[in-house]
């Protein structure tokens, strides 16, 4: 995958420098027909503003919520979304894939 994520990481740096709490969520593993490949990322700030994507829009809401915890605690988290997981249905990754997303604070 060629790199098209420039504004995302730039935004992460800019937001952090501007004094915002910032978390970075990165797809680290995919199975099945996951919509975004490993390495795709989403950056979230403590106002709930986000850029980029880790899925086709299916699980971003849940990732943003978890990212708020990560910004608060400073501890990284591994999230998993998939069809086998009931909560995944709730948040909507119904395309048949499974993804693992690593969420970390920028500090």
């Amino acid at each position, binding site marked *: *995958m*060629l*790199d*098209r994520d*420039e504004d995302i*990481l*730039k935004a*992460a*740096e800019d937001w*952090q*420098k501007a004094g915002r709490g910032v978390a*970075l969520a*990165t797809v*680290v*593993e995919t199975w099945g027909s996951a919509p975004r*490949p*490993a*390495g795709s990322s989403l950056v979230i700030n403590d106002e709930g503003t986000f850029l980029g994507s880790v899925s086709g829009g299916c699980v971003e809401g849940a990732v943003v919520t978890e990212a708020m915890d990560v910004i608060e605690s400073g*501890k*990284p988290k*591994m999230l998993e979304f998939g069809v086998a997981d009931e909560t995944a249905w709730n948040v909507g990754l119904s395309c048949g894939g499974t993804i693992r997303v*690593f969420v*970390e*604070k*920028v*500090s």
Partner: protein
Amino acid sequence: MKLAILHELNAERAARRPAILVTDTESGEQRLVKANDFAKDPLRVELEKQLRMGKSANVEVGGKKLFLNVYAPTAKLVIVGAVHISQALAPLARSLGYDVTVVDPRTAFASAERFPDIPLVAEWPDTALPPLDVDAYTAFVAVTHDPKIDDPALLHAFERGCFYIGALGSRKTHAKRGDRLRAQGAKDSDIARIHAPIGLAIGAVSPSEIAVSIMAEITAVLRLPPKEKEEAA
């Protein structure tokens, strides 16, 4: 991620230098490995493989689960010659994810009607090429058939270390081109870098088929490990 690492990563990306971020997904520990430092890294083999594939991946080393996130610059394709082949090549390359620019000083060729939505520079290579920042993540093809245009363009490509250099023309044409370029200071090793006749030998006839053979060759050079690359060529 530490802000210092993020800053360093953004600097490498802005400079179009590849880098890989290695994350221990259990501890959260991270380090950034710049392409220049791959050779002396304990993960050398894995890093080189993932960069070549342009693909992020998980590896397990010494009981540690590591995620290798690959940051490779967007590859560019510079096409010198706004000819019929280029009309097929430019959109094909773009669909493969390349940033494409077409250069041709002949304004009748380099017209927006012939190349809708493709960045065009209707200037001689000496003027057109320097601002394009041709680099090691650039594939470079010269297809005008006109030595006045192709030759200076190829000399520029040698200087910038493009990962792929191709030029249109038969073996005979290419032999003459070699002589001309040497007379202008090119080394034998530079001439040897030119893929000519251009493209994989797939019996391409039409401009579109030639475009496919060129992109297939560029893909092979970009993705295959060095040994298999020799076999494919």
